[in-house]
């Protein structure tokens, strides 16, 4: 009784709490139609309020009715000013999020992470390449990541997350600004499409509260410079995935948006690749109730398997203290027809043809027929892959990075990030990762990863314009303000990306024999005994004993037969 009473209380509170962030923040209370408004003459302040004859809207504010949003707007910042005239606290909330700071303090490891600080195995570093990289920043005009974004509320980009017109975008080299009339020739958006002039007024009047999957996806699906390049489990396939690509996000499945799992509070979203919620233990929470962590367990509990066969279900539930849900339920990533970049070798970048022109090769054909680059003078050699089997490792979600200026051992593969956690620890599970294989520049004398200046047309140093490693690295290191010996080489790197999206329908989950077989998926993993993965010592000794018994019986029988022959076929008895 007590338990069910608690559950009901928890459920009611959850329902109430669940409503708050979604609607209360963005709805100015004075716009809400007052009860009994029809019976009295309509007050001036409520002249735009909907009447009972109007369709009931999802949100309590129709932004197309606001005079402040009629425009015209000359810049994104002007739209933000209009937003802030009502939503006075919104910009400050955004400016306290990692979306704005690109900085993440990992209390557990003491490391300062975030795009503004770390190195990665893709384009390396933001510093000196800002206007290209910060094209996906939730602000306008961050042209120097050596300094934090200025405390200027009008620099927050409200539209990138809240636009519902579908025609708002950011240009790929304007430090977060949208392409506006007149659009420069050859300009591209952050998704790589030919840029179009954005209608800021239309976008401003279209806004809605929870970001849609396109709001998130237009940046997050294109990380690393193209569709699915970086994550492997976040691609344009998730804009409208079939059920077998993502059972949660498919319109034929649960039709989740990103925010269904990545719940937000004060514009800060749950979910992190620095400190991943590998587990979310909550024995008292009902499945499906409000949660504050973006883990599978948050909704599914730690014993999610039920019938039809209770014995199998119990056996599968036995696995949940060893395996992350993702390990079985995301059998492969880069599904849905969009390949991910798996190998990036920068060391071959810079080669030019006999006319001094850059070379491109398109040696990979994606399953939708699209050709992808396998060599570019700008970037070196690539490999791509679809339906990739993940790399598995024990993980407690804690990532420790090899930060700039941290000494590396170039004789070994440098792990850009190291996966935390140990076999059998209560906070660790076997988790799937995309292991990005890189070859990156480093300072040979100082044994540190090198900053590179890849973007910057007209600056005389950028690799993508001038194809000269000497200049590129010198410019990058100088910009970052670190010492550079002038002597560089390339080192092999791994970078690990947690795989947690593209959850397949239950029928497509890994089967027992995916792991419980010789050479199965866990074959290289220490710290677990996987029955069926080898003929163990007991099995070898036992087999020997069994064969000896068999040979003994056969030998004994053969001797009897021989002796019976000698005795002239005499059968005793």
């Amino acid at each position, binding site marked *: 009784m007590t338990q069910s009473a608690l559950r009901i209380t928890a459920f009611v509170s959850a329902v109430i709490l669940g409503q708050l962030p979604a609607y209360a923040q963005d709805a100015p209370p004075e716009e809400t139609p007052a009860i009994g408004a029809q019976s009295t003459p309509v007050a001036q302040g409520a002249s735009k309020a909907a009447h009972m004859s109007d369709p009931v809207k999802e949100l309590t504010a129709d932004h197309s009715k606001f005079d402040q949003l009629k425009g015209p707007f000359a810049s994104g910042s002007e739209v933000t000013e209009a937003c802030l005239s009502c939503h006075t606290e919104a910009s400050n909330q955004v400016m306290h999020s990692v979306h704005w700071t690109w900085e993440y303090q990992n209390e557990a490891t003491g490391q300062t992470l975030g795009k503004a600080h770390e190195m990665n195995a893709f384009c390396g570093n933001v510093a000196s390449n800002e206007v290209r990289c910060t094209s996906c920043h939730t602000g306008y005009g961050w042209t120097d990541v050596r300094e934090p974004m200025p405390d200027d509320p009008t620099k927050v980009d409200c539209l990138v997350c809240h636009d519902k017109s579908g025609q708002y975008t950011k240009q790929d080299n304007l430090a977060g600004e949208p392409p506006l009339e007149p659009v420069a020739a050859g300009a591209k958006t952050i998704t790589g499409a030919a840029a179009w002039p954005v209608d800021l007024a239309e976008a401003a009047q279209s806004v809605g509260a929870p970001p849609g999957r396109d709001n998130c996806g237009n940046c997050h699906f294109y990380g690393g410079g193209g569709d699915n390049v970086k994550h492997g489990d976040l691609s344009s396939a998730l804009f409208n995935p079939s059920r077998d690509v993502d059972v949660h996000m498919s319109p034929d499945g649960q039709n989740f948006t990103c925010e269904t799992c990545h719940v937000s509070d004060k514009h800060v979203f749950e979910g992190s690749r620095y400190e991943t919620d590998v587990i979310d233990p909550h024995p008292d929470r009902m499945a499906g109730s409000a949660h504050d962590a973006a883990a599978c367990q948050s909704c599914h509990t730690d014993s999610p398997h039920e019938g039809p*066969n209770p*014995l*199998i279900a*119990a*056996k599968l*539930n*036995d696995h949940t*203290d*060893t395996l992350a849900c993702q390990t079985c339920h995301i059998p492969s990533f880069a599904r849905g027809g969009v390949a991910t970049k798996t190998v990036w070798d920068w060391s071959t970048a810079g080669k030019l043809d006999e006319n001094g022109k850059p070379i491109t090769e398109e040696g990979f054909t994606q399953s939708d027929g699209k050709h992808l680059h396998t060599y570019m003078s700008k970037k070196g050699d690539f490999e791509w892959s679809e339906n990739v089997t993940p790399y598995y490792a024990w993980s407690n979600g804690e990532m420790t990075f090899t930060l700039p200026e941290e000494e590396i051992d170039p004789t070994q593969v440098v792990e850009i990030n190291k996966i935390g956690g140990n*076999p*059998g620890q*209560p906070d660790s599970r076997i988790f799937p990762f995309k292991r990005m294989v890189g070859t990156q520049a480093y300072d040979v004398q100082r044994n540190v990863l090198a900053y590179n200046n890849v973007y910057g047309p007209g600056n005389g140093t950028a690799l993508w314009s001038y194809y000269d490693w000497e200049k590129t690295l010198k410019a990058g290191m100088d910009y970052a303000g670190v010492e550079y010996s002038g002597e560089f080489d390339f080192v092999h790197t791994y970078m690990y990306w947690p795989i947690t999206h593209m959850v397949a329908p239950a029928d497509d989950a890994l*089967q*027992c*024999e995916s792991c*419980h*077989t*010789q050479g199965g998926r866990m074959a290289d993993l220490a*710290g*677990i*005994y996987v*029955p*069926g*993965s*080898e*003929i*163990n*010592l*007991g*099995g070898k*000794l*036992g*087999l020997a*004993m*069994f064969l*000896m*018994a*068999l040979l*003994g*019986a056969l030998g*004994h*029988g053969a*001797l*009897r037969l021989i*002796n*019976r022959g000698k*005795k002239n076929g*005499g*059968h*005793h*008895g």
Partner: protein
Amino acid sequence: MAEHCVKVYSRFNRLWHWSQVGSIMLLFFTGARLLGLHPILPFGAAVLIHTVVALALLLLWAFATFWLFTTGGYKQFIPRMQGMWEVSRFYAYGVFKGEEHPYVKSYERRHNPLQAAAYFALKMMLFPAIWISGLAYLSYGFWDHLDGGSFWLEIIANFHVLAAFAIASFVVVHVYLLTIGHGFRQHVRPMVSGYEKVDLTPEAEAYFRQQGRVLD
């Protein structure tokens, strides 16, 4: 004393024996699948069958143990040295010379000393080894949080497999020995019909005749 065909294996005794045969064969087959010796059956189905059959067999063993002790049938399996040398010598030597089996079955001791010793070892060592390690294996989910859980699982798994092969070796020898003497069919028949030739005192014969348990 004369040999007569008497009903020595009761219905429960035969049911026990043959369901044990069936279960153990299924356990060998599915266990070999789990070890990776053959690919017939999906792994999950093999786990399921192995688990259910093992639990059913344990239940049967519980009943059989109860039955053995209440009926006094357990005395059949108490090992003894008397006649051990003769029987051992027969299997190692005499059988090749066409000698008669030195052991004459009685109603109270239908197993020869070597046989009794083998069954005793099977029941007191191999069966407990397989079911204790099996239950520990099966209940892994309840103790895997302990320190070194995975290490102990590996120890238990090895032990379980080793015990299984020991039982398999017993089965090989057990079946082979049925071919010695009066022949395989003659030896299997009593466990089907329940009747076997044993030495009876006239008093015992009279008693069994009265009960209708003597065939000839």
